[in-house]
């Protein structure tokens, strides 16, 4: 779908190339993560694909067409683009921002409005935000708008330059998980630049590791690279704990969740005690049907109806799409014994440190 051939960029005033004879094939529907140390030429490579930077030499083919031979504006309108600074247009409403490329392509207003409505659903935004201006949104919401805007004209190719770099870690994990799922359903051809190894492993079908000067050090599936780093550089770049990094490849839901000591609020004290005993714990999780209410201390069970006990919130709540790496970080940093997995309020199961550790050694 995208083919880079001997791509080279030497910036004027510089003697060493920023990108050196890079050759890469990116298949249709594949998400390739470009990763490497700061200044290694990731952004330069990405921007050559939509010709924001003109290559010094080499060939770029996008969807079978020579990218150099297409008028640059036409090329760019057929490629979705998300940058780290988000770059929403401050003077345009969210709806207008999302509709940018369709309106450049001359779609009529109703078609644009329909498409915007659809995308708001896709990226998980509120409809009421459509009339607002970007400055009225949080960083995470703005980044969602950035993704929606890139997807607007349904381009086959998506270029993303550290798209989740500007948001805080918790929001970033959520956005990564959602993007992972989105990519599964949309099947775009994605080139995703990041400097975060876990993100590259989690999102990439293949990872391209670049050395300084834009030299391709290794290009393969994350599992392969983790198992067999091609060089000292790659090994050192991935850092220690390659076993831990594998966790980024797995979603929480893959870890075999347990139900844990959870009962419905309608349960009687005997059942509650039996469940705690069976799980060998001194606390009890409360559910209202499928919905998670919280937990209560074992000593309070039996003192009154479960319904009347005021449950406390769990320290760590995960989404089933989060990576196990995210789960591990959350559990360790919060000193929690368990993490509960909840999708839109619905309880899916729980996970403890041992369950995660089991996945590392496997």
């Amino acid at each position: 779908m995208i083919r880079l051939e001997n791509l080279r960029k030497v910036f004027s005033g510089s003697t060493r190339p920023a990108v050196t004879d890079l050759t890469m094939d990116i298949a249709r529907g594949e998400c390739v993560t470009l990763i490497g140390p700061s200044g290694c030429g990731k952004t330069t490579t990405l921007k050559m694909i939509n010709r924001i930077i003109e290559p010094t030499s080499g060939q770029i083919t996008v969807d079978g067409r020579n990218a150099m031979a297409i008028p640059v504006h036409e090329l760019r309108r057929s490629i979705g683009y998300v940058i780290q600074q988000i770059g929403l247009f401050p003077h345009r409403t969210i709806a207008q921002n999302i509709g940018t490329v369709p309106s450049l392509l001359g779609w009529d207003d109703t078609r644009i409005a329909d498409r915007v409505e659809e995308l708001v659903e896709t990226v998980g935004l509120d409809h009421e935000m459509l009339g607002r201006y970007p400055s009225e949104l949080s960083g995470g919401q703005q980044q969602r708008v950035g993704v929606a805007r890139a997807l607007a004209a349904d381009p086959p190719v998506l270029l993303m330059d550290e798209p989740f770099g500007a948001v805080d870690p918790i929001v970033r994990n959520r956005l990564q998980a959602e993007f992972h799922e989105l990519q599964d359903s949309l099947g775009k051809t994605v080139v995703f630049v990041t400097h975060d190894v876990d993100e590259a492993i989690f999102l990439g079908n293949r990872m391209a590791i670049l050395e300084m000067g834009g030299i391709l050090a290794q290009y393969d599936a994350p599992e392969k690279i983790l198992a067999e780093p091609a060089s000292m550089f790659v090994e050192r770049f991935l850092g220690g704990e390659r076993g831990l990094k594998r966790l980024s490849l797995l979603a929480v839901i893959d870890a075999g969740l347990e139900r844990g000591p959870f009962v419905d609020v309608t349960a009687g004290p005997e059942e509650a005690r039996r469940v705690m005993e069976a799980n060998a714990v001194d606390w009890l999780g409360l559910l209202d049907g499928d919905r998670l209410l919280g937990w209560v201390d074992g000593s309070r069970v039996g003192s009154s109806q479960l319904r009347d006990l005021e449950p406390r919130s769990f320290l760590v709540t995960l989404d089933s799409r989060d990576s196990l790496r995210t789960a591990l970080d959350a559990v360790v940093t919060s000193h929690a014994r368990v993490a509960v997995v909840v999708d839109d309020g619905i309880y899916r199961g729980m996970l403890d440190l041992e369950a995660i550790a089991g996945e590392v050694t496997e």
Partner: protein
Amino acid sequence: MTLVGQAAPLIDWEWIGRNMDQIVERTWEHLGLTAVSVLLGLVISVGLAIIALRWRWTYAPITWVTGLLYTIPSLALFALLVPIVGLNATNAVIALTSYTLLIIIRNLVAGIDGVPASVTEAADGMGYTPQARFWRMEVPLALPAIIAGLRIATVTTVGLVTVTAVLGLGGYGFFILRGLNTFFWTQILVGVVLSVVLATLLDVGFVWLERVLSPWARGRQ
């Protein structure tokens, strides 16, 4: 207690009533001189700002020349222009316009320069042509700064118009000058107060204009 021996009241309302026609006429003159000068200043500034943005090296000489114009005392500038264009409205407009240039150009260039690089990069990446990007991204985003420049230029010009009284024009300045010559306080006060009121009204007008044209900038700055 009453003040004894005060020759004339500070404000002679009767004079104002008798001269309403003239006040209205001078209002139009004042507004006309201000509007023509600021609009002309805007047109010239846009041209110069486009040159300065296109060829960066021209910005320093442009601000140097317009800055120099700005420092010439207004009375001197009117006098300097008399041998060239005479004692008339053209003289006044040339001088007044030249005072607006520095402020408007600086705000135009600063406004365009203030557009975040992320916005221009995103616009390029979405497939905007350079021209479309300029008119649909950079200009609207620079609008608050541009309007701020026009606002200062306008208020300054309203004040300066009074000085054109020496050319036989002056808008409200006409009353001030004649009042000073005849020690007639009412005329001086009418000239000063109306000039301040006009400047304030125009100032408020620009604030409103900014709100209407740049609703997205509300609550910022």
